[in-house]
């Protein structure tokens, strides 16, 4: 089991979410974060006050995957989050010791599979087909 943490551009979130769902990764946690990477600073002007915005808004997505899904997950993020410009973000992969589903007490891989994963995945694939987007 691996914890995959990725930092992506907020404007790419819909594509990243769709790609993860298509790959069968349907259990994800989001947070809004700010950070500093290699991007240019942004300037704002209010009357005589000039502000340099050193931190950029990003979205952090965390998900725990069983081993067969790890590479698919990484590839899904890479294909959907990349714009080619500085500031596309990072993916971190870390080992995980234990996972327990609170509702049932199931552990590890059994706890990781969402019960509606197949349906969510199928809906995501269908939506991509209808919308014409890969």
């Amino acid at each position: 089991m691996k914890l995959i943490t990725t930092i992506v551009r907020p404007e790419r979130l819909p594509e990243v979410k769709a790609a993860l769902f298509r790959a069968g990764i349907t259990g994800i946690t989001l947070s809004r974060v700010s950070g500093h990477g290699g991007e240019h600073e942004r300037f704002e002007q209010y009357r005589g006050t000039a502000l340099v915005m050193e931190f950029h808004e990003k979205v952090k997505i965390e998900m725990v995957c069983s081993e067969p899904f790890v590479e698919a997950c990484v590839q899904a993020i890479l294909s959907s989050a990349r714009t080619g410009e500085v500031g596309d973000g990072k993916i971190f992969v870390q080992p995980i010791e234990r996972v327990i589903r609170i509702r049932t007490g199931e552990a590890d891989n059994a706890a990781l599979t969402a019960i509606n994963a197949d349906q969510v995945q199928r809906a995501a694939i269908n939506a991509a087909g209808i919308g014409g987007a890969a």
Partner: protein
Amino acid sequence: MTQAAALSSGDTAWVLTSSALVLLMTVGLAFFYGGLVRPKNALNTMMMSVVALGVIGVQWMLIGYSIAFAPGNSWLGSLAWFGLNNVGVDPNPTYSATIPLQAHAMFQGMFAIITPALISGAIVERMRFRGYVVFLVLWATLIYDPLAHWVWGSGGWLLKRGALDFAGGTVVHISAGVSALVAAWFLGPRKDYRRVPIAPHNVPLVLLGAGLLWFGWFGFNAGSALAANGLAALAFVNTNTAAAAALVTWAGLDLARTGKVTAVGAATGLVVGLVAITPAAGYVTPMSSLFIGILGAGVSYTAIQIRSRTKLDDALDVFSCHGLAGTAGALLTGVFATKLMNPAGGDGLLAGNPGQLGVQLLAVLATVAFAGLGTLGILKLVEVTIGARANVPEESAGLDLSQHGEEAYFGSDLGSFAGTGGSLGGSVVVQSFAAEPAVAPAPSPV
């Protein structure tokens, strides 16, 4: 009987309408200032304007109108009109030959309300509310009311010298602007000033407020004709022209300096144009009002850039926007005024009367000295009695919580309020032709 016969229903309707328009300006000012501060001080900043509607509304009816306009000497009115005693519904030839004197009292009252509220922009985010309210009442009584008597009251010394101030360039804007400068200096800078980035928390509110100010200003300036006549139309045209010219000028200066036109700049620019034309509105040609708008914006814009680099925390630049644009307008009135537009007015420099510029300068200097020293004295009094400056914990918590015990944005994450969220909202657009729902009902647990 002759007085009653002279009452004009058209004039009365316009002045009553204008009074309501000027009242709306104070609410507009609350939005304008409220949007420019940080979220933890939004309510306190707005209340600094709104509370004036209450306390000055009462003060004016009780003694303010009497000090400013009742028959008296050249410095002060008498108390003959205390509580609007002897202020009837018939016209009074001195002030209003065609409208009820009570209409004049209400119209002028709205000016008395907004003027001290203008000062609040300089001292936002750091003044105790109780101290502010006491300051408001004392300033209105000891500074505004006498000043209004000097310039507009029967027998006022500046009126007798022929100073031209159509709708309040000296009485309203210079007095408020100078008092703002003194108050900002007296209270000292906010503890975060020039240490932490401070930016407007809601620019749409700023634009709403500026729009209401522009709308209400037609009552302020065109209403100052005190009649529904050609002079009111002239003041209306000049008011709109100067505001528009100042907005364009400000946007151009923004563009030249930073490469972008800002919304806060557009809002500020139009207000500055309105300030600059206020003393001149009924005395100059529309072409002159164009120049007054442009010059007023230029002066104010430059002053704001300089002020921002100093330690003087005139937080919302009241001195630059009202004091300096008001001074520019008052002096330019002495340049551009012409009796061709208003026979009851005067001729300025360009109409061959350079002396008018001297009279205008005298009015400006007298206002600066009186308002500046008076404000200093009042603030000192407030400081030693009930306290003027909020302490550090109060300032850190924000004045909304520390002074009013409430929050502008209770329970909301300001990030999502400000609209920066959106993509994290979690909702999706559901296409009506989707083959199956995006999220199918969960099957029963296995």
